[in-house]
């Protein structure tokens, strides 16, 4: 099955992700896929949440934290600045406190908490995935290409989302019980209706956000996840492990893209032993890839002469991946 065919057969899969270990070509493939889809007349947004994002580099345009930036017809790119997102969020919370209680400034201990909370490592992941919900829920684009953070983070988030969900369930229950007591008291005192519990409303909102963000990764109908691999032992072992974990979280895997394959044609030329050895090594692991992933291998991409930056190189890569 070729990449092109996969996209043609599953037009409903609109959230496309390339995942894999760092440095294997996730961003490159995301950009090339976005380019190809845009050329097919689809409106595409390719976005990245990586703090060391490289979409700016590949498109040779500074887009970090600037919202969706138009690259060419039908193609937009966006790099989310997590820090900026967290800061805006903190200010929103501060403003809410000031508005609710008419304070001049946020009380010290509350302010300390707001700052300490933002220093937590999980803050960034949550902020990132929350920002992604905003982007995807907008629904303005035909395709969302998600230049994923390295695998670990995504898995971490998925498991976090599960725990969060249970946590929310528990506190929602507690909150509902509290509400019953409140109602009881007001009945006993023959007071009028109790006020609506805003915390309960907030909890329900939080739950929908968490579910929305994890469902973007796990939606069987709309999500397509590609693993990027290279024919080397360590990568294959790690990817197999990750694939197993992803399957546990119901992430729909669409295929594997093999990158950095040294062109076989070189063997007909007089090449140094160094290169010959590399080809032999790759042959061994390409064989392994074939037996392990079989039909799921969607494309082999050769090691190119130079790095992929700029639209011209992206176009060349798109032609290799999807045909002319």
């Amino acid at each position, binding site marked *: 099955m070729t990449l092109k065919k996969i996209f043609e057969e599953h037009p409903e899969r609109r959230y496309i992700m390339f995942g894999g270990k760092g440095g294997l070509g996730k961003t490159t493939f995301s950009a090339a896929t976005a380019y190809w889809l845009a050329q097919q007349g689809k409106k595409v947004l390719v976005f990245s949440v990586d703090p060391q994002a490289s979409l700016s580099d590949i498109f040779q345009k500074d887009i970090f934290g600037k919202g969706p930036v138009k690259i060419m017809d039908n193609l937009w790119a966006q790099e989310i600045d997590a820090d900026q997102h967290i800061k805006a*969020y*903190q200010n929103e*919370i501060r403003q*809410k*406190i000031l508005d*609710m*209680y008419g304070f001049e400034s946020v*009380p010290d*201990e*509350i302010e300390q*908490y*707001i700052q*300490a*909370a933002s220093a*937590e490592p*999980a*803050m960034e*992941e*949550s*902020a990132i995935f*929350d920002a992604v919900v905003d982007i995807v829920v907008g629904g303005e684009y035909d395709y969302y290409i998600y230049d994923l953070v390295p695998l670990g983070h995504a898995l971490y988030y998925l498991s*976090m989302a599960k*725990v*969060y969900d249970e*946590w929310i369930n*528990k*506190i929602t229950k*507690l*909150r509902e*019980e*509290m509400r019953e*007591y*409140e109602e*009881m*008291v007001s009945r*006993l*005192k*023959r007071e009028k209706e109790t006020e609506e519990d*805003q*915390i309960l409303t*907030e*909890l329900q*909102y*939080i739950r929908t*956000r*968490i579910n929305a963000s994890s469902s973007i990764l796990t939606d069987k109908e709309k999500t397509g996840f590609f693993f990027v691999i290279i024919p080397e032992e360590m990568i294959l072992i790690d990817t197999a492990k990750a694939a197993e974990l992803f399957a546990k979280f119901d992430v729909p895997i669409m295929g594997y893209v093999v990158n950095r394959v040294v062109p076989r044609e070189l063997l007909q030329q007089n090449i140094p032993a160094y290169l010959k050895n590399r080809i032999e090594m790759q042959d061994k692991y390409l064989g392994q890839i074939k037996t392990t992933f079989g039909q799921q291998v969607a494309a082999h991409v050769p090691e190119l002469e130079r790095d992929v930056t700029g639209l011209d190189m992206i176009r060349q890569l798109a032609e290799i991946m999807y045909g002319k």
Partner: protein
Amino acid sequence: MSEEEKKSFWQNMKEILYGMASHDMSRYALRTRASMEHLFILITMGDMIGIPILPPYYSLRLLPYVVPQISTWKRRLLREKDVSDAMF
């Protein structure tokens, strides 16, 4: 007895009845409600007193609603037990 007096008589009766029958119940309910409130804040804002329960991104959303309770909550949670616990 004028209309006015009649009204306040019934009002008093009502309050006496409430005091006899349900005041204790509602006091108890309010106390339970308060304990739950504190438990709730502990679960969501535990970090504040050094008990990290879960990543705080979404806890922050709840923060504005519990601002007035924070100081009583801290006092209650961090104080040592004494006789008055049984009384109030």
